C-alpha cells in the first residue's frame, strides 16, 4: 500500500479516512460503509439497511483495512483517524466473488419468473461483482418451500432467501412485533413464523421492500409487472392524513403497487398495509365520464363541459336571485387538493357570497393551528407522549412506528390512555418529563386541549390527527364555516350536517358539492333528503354515487391519481401529488372548472385555473404556504388566528 493516511485535522469531532486513495472527513462513529457512500464509492451489502442497526451477517461488504490482520465488514466497522480502506483490490474482489458464489449455492436462479428480477440486489451485485459461473452443480441444490403464503399480502420463497436477517430485524427494531424468526441452523436455516402461523402485523407490506432479494414478495403484485415496465409517479398516500410519501407505480394505465418513497420527516420509509394495499380502488372503471344535465322533472342529457358549467352558473344564479346568496350550501372534501379547496372557498365566499361552506359533517369548535404544533419527527424529541384513545393510531397507523421509534431510540414513555382519561391523572403520569406530546384525533380535540392545559412543568405540544388525506389542507384553505383561508375570521355559517339538514328542510335551495367525499356519504338519510329537496344540486365528482346520482348538473371530476396539486398532512406539511394515470374524462381539471364557474358567475379577476397557476396565487395569498414550498411545514403564527 502506498496510500498515505489523511492528515489529522482540527478536533472538530470528525476523523479523516482514506478510501481507495481518496480522503474524506466524517463524524466520529461513522461506519466505513457510510464514509464510502459519502465518497460515492459503492460497497455491496445485503444485511445492512439504513433504518436498521448493523448486524454484519452477510459478509458481502468485507473490505481491506490497513493494519487489520483480516478483512473487516464495512457495515460494522467505525472509522478511525488515519484509517486506510481499500475496496477495489484483488483481495476484496476475490472475497466478493466467494461470498456471492456461496449465496448462490442453493439459490434457485429463477430470476426470469421472480417478481424481484430487475430490482434485486442479489441479481445486481452478481452482475457487478460476482463470478460469471458457479462450481456447484445446479442439480444438487438444497430445496426449500416456494410460494409459501405468510398472509393474505405476503408470499415467502425460502429458496431465494439469503438469510440477511433484515425481515427479522425489521420486526425487532421497527415494529417490535417479532413475528418472523430464523429457525433451524446451518444449511437448513429458514425464515418462518411461529408454528407456521399467518402474519398479523399492520405493517407487513414493508417486508418485500426490506428484503434485498425475491424471498418476500407482495401477493397483490405477483406476476403483475416487471420493474422496468413501471411508470413511477412520486405522490402521497391518499388513505389518511399522515401524508406518507409513495411512488405510485403503474403499467398499462393501471396502478400496480404503491412503493415507499423515504421521507425521514414523515413516513421514515414505512407504509401501513391499509395505505399500501389501497391501490386497486384507483383502477376502477366505474367513473363519471361525461358532463350531464338532469333538470328536475326534465330529460337527462349529455352535454359538453362548457355547457354544463354555464348551466350550473345559471342554476346557482337563479337560486341566489330568488332566495339570496345564503341559500347556497357548498361542500368540499378532504380528498380535494389545496388548489381546488382554495378556489372553492373563494368561489363560495367571494363570488356566490354564502357563508355555508364545509368539508365534513361535524363542527370544529375553537379551531387553532397550535393543535398541530407537534410535528411527526418531533415525536422522537419528546420525553413523554400521551395518546388519547385508539383512534389516532387507527386513523394514521404509521404513527405507531414513530411512537415505537421514540420509545426504542430515546426511551420516551408512551402513555396510551382511554380517550376520556382524567387530565389531572395524565398530568401526574407525565410529571418530570421536559417535552411532552399530546396526540388525539378530531373527536377528542377538546379533551386533548384540557389535557394539555392540565400538564405543568414541561413544554407541551399537541398533534391532532385530521381525517382524510387533505383534511388539514381543507382547514388551512378555509373550507369551514366561520373561518376563511389562513384562519381569518369570516361570517359564521352552517357546518356540514347543518347544511344538509337545511337543504332537507328547504332552507337552503342549492348545493355545490366538490367530491368525492366519503365522509358526506356517511350522513345517510339526511343526505338523500337534502339532495332530493334542493332545487339545484351541482356536483363535481369522479365516481358515480349518491351525490353524482342526485345531481341536477353533473361535471366529471378527476381521481386523486389523475391530477397535479398539493395536499397538507396533519402536521401542516405541504406535499405535491402527481398524476399516475391518464384522466378518465376529457373534462378540464377541477381548478379550471371552478375558475370557469366563477367567471360565469361574474368574477373578473380569476385566471384560467391551471393547477400550477392556482398554486402560485395560493402561495402569494398565504404566507405560510409560500414558506412551506414543496415538502415544508406551513406554520401559522398566533396573530393569524381568529
Amino acid at each position, binding site marked *: 500500500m502506498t496510500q498515505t493516511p489523511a492528515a489529522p485535522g482540527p478536533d472538530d469531532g470528525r476523523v479523516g479516512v482514506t478510501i481507495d486513495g481518496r480522503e474524506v472527513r466524517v463524524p466520529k462513529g461513522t461506519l466505513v460503509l457510510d464514509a464510502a457512500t459519502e465518497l460515492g464509492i459503492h460497497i455491496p451489502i445485503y444485511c445492512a439497511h439504513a433504518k436498521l442497526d448493523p448486524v454484519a451477517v452477510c459478509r458481502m461488504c468485507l473490505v481491506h483495512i490497513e493494519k487489520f490482520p483480516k478483512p473487516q465488514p464495512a457495515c460494522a466497522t467505525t472509522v478511525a483517524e488515519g484509517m486506510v480502506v481499500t475496496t477495489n483490490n484483488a483481495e476484496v474482489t476475490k472475497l466478493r466473488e466467494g461470498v456471492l458464489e456461496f449465496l448462490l449455492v442453493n439459490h434457485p436462479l429463477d430470476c426470469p419468473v421472480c417478481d424481484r428480477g430487475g430490482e434485486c440486489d442479489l441479481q445486481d451485485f452478481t452482475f457487478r461483482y460476482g463470478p460469471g459461473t458457479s462450481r456447484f452443480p445446479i442439480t444438487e441444490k438444497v430445496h426449500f418451500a416456494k410460494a409459501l403464503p405468510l398472509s393474505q399480502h405476503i408470499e415467502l420463497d425460502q429458496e431465494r432467501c439469503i438469510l440477511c436477517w433484515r425481515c427479522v430485524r425489521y420486526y425487532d427494531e421497527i415494529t417490535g412485533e*417479532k*413475528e*418472523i*424468526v430464523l*429457525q*433451524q*441452523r446451518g444449511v437448513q436455516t429458514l425464515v418462518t413464523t*411461529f408454528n407456521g402461523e399467518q402474519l398479523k402485523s399492520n405493517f407487513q407490506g414493508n417486508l418485500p421492500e426490506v428484503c434485498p432479494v425475491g424471498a418476500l414478495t407482495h401477493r397483490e403484485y405477483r406476476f403483475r409487472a416487471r420493474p422496468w415496465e413501471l411508470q413511477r409517479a412520486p405522490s402521497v398516500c391518499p388513505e389518511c392524513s399522515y401524508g406518507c410519501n409513495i411512488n405510485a407505480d403503474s403499467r398499462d394505465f393501471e396502478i400496480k403497487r404503491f412503493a415507499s418513497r423515504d421521507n425521514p420527516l414523515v413516513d421514515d420509509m414505512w407504509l401501513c398495509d391499509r395505505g399500501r394495499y389501497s391501490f386497486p380502488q384507483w383502477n376502477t372503471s366505474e367513473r363519471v365520464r361525461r358532463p350531464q344535465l338532469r333538470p328536475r322533472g326534465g330529460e337527462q342529457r349529455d352535454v359538453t363541459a362548457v355547457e354544463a358549467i354555464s348551466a350550473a352558473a345559471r342554476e346557482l344564479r337563479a337560486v341566489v336571485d330568488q332566495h339570496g346568496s345564503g341559500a347556497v350550501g357548498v361542500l368540499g372534501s378532504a380528498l380535494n387538493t389545496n388548489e381546488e379547496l382554495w378556489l372553492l372557498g373563494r368561489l363560495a365566499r367571494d363570488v356566490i357570497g354564502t357563508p355555508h361552506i364545509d368539508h365534513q359533517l361535524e363542527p370544529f369548535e375553537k379551531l387553532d393551528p397550535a393543535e398541530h404544533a407537534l410535528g411527526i419527527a418531533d415525536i422522537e424529541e419528546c420525553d413523554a407522549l400521551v395518546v388519547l384513545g385508539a383512534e389516532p393510531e387507527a386513523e394514521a397507523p404509521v404513527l405507531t412506528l414513530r411512537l415505537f421509534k421514540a420509545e426504542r431510540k430515546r426511551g420516551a414513555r408512551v402513555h396510551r390512555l382511554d380517550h376520556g382519561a382524567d387530565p389531572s391523572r395524565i398530568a401526574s403520569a407525565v410529571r418530570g418529563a421536559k417535552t411532552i406530546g399530546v396526540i388525539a384525533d378530531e373527536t377528542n380535540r377538546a379533551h386533548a386541549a384540557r389535557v394539555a392545559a392540565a400538564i405543568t412543568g414541561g413544554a407541551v405540544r399537541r398533534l391532532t390527527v385530521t381525517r382524510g388525506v387533505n383534511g388539514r389542507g381543507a382547514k388551512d384553505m378555509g373550507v369551514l364555516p366561520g373561518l376563511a383561508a389562513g384562519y381569518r375570521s369570516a361570517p359564521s355559517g352552517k357546518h356540514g350536517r347543518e347544511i344538509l339538514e337545511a337543504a332537507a328542510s328547504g332552507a337552503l335551495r342549492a348545493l355545490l358539492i366538490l367530491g368525492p367525499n366519503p365522509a358526506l356519504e356517511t350522513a345517510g338519510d339526511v343526505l338523500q333528503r337534502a339532495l332530493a329537496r334542493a332545487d339545484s344540486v351541482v356536483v363535481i365528482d369522479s365516481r358515480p354515487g349518491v351525490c353524482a346520482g342526485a345531481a341536477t348538473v353533473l361535471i366529471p371530476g378527476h381521481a386523486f391519481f389523475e391530477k397535479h396539486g398539493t395536499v397538507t398532512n396533519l402536521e401542516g406539511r405541504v406535499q405535491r401529488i402527481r398524476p399516475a394515470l391518464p384522466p378518465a374524462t376529457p373534462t378540464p381539471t377541477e381548478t379550471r372548472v371552478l375558475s370557469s364557474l366563477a367567471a360565469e358567475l361574474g368574477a373578473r379577476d380569476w385566471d384560467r385555473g391551471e393547477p400550477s397557476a392556482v398554486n402560485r396565487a395560493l402561495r402569494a395569498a398565504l404566507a405560510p404556504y409560500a414558506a412551506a414550498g414543496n415538502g415544508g411545514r406551513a406554520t401559522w403564527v398566533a396573530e393569524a388566528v381568529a
Partner: protein
Amino acid sequence: MSLSAATRAEIETARERYPQARSAILPALWAVQHEVGHLSPDGMEEVARILHVTASEVEAVSTFYSMYFQKPHGRHEVIVCINVSCALRGADDIVAHLERSLGCESGSTTADGEFTWSSTVECLGACGGAPAMQLDHRFVENLTPESVDATLAAARASSPHATTGPGDAVGAEPAAASSGERRRGAPAGGRTRPRRRTKPEASDG
C-alpha cells in the same frame, strides 16, 4: 393445554435467574420437554407468556438445538453412538440389532410408542465403555445384543425421564441393577471409594 404448576414454577424460577427473561428460554424449554415429552406449540406459547417474549422467539431457539424435540417422541429416547471408538467395538452390530428388535429405522418411533431411537448423533463421550448408547439421561456401556435387550425390557417396565413429576418417583430409577448402566458423567464401574485430594491438606492454612 396447560403446564403443571411445578413446571410453571420451574420456568418462573429460571426467569428470575437472568437479567433478561429471554435468557431463560433454554431452561424453560427443558422444563416443558420433561413434562410433555416434546415441545408442542401450546407449550412454547405458554413459555413465551411466562417469559414475556414472543412465541416465535421461543420456537427459533428450540429449532436451533437438536436435543429439543419438535414432534412427539416415544416414552424413552435411545441414542446409539457410532463414532470411531464405538464403531471399532461393534456399534454397527448394535445398530442392526436395535433396528431388528425395535422394528423401525433410526430416527423413528416404535409402533407401541415406547422408544424413539437414533444413531445419527456424534460421539457421546463414552469411549471408555464403547460401544455405548444413551437411554433417556443415562449411559449404557459395553453393549452386547443381549444387554441391549435386557436394558430395553427394563425400560419398557419403567417410567421415562428420571426428572418427571413426583408421582413417578417409585419407578423413576429404572433397573439400576443393570450392570452396564451409570449416570452420565459418573466414573465407569461406579464410585468405589471416597475421592482423595491430590494434595495433602495444608495444616498451616
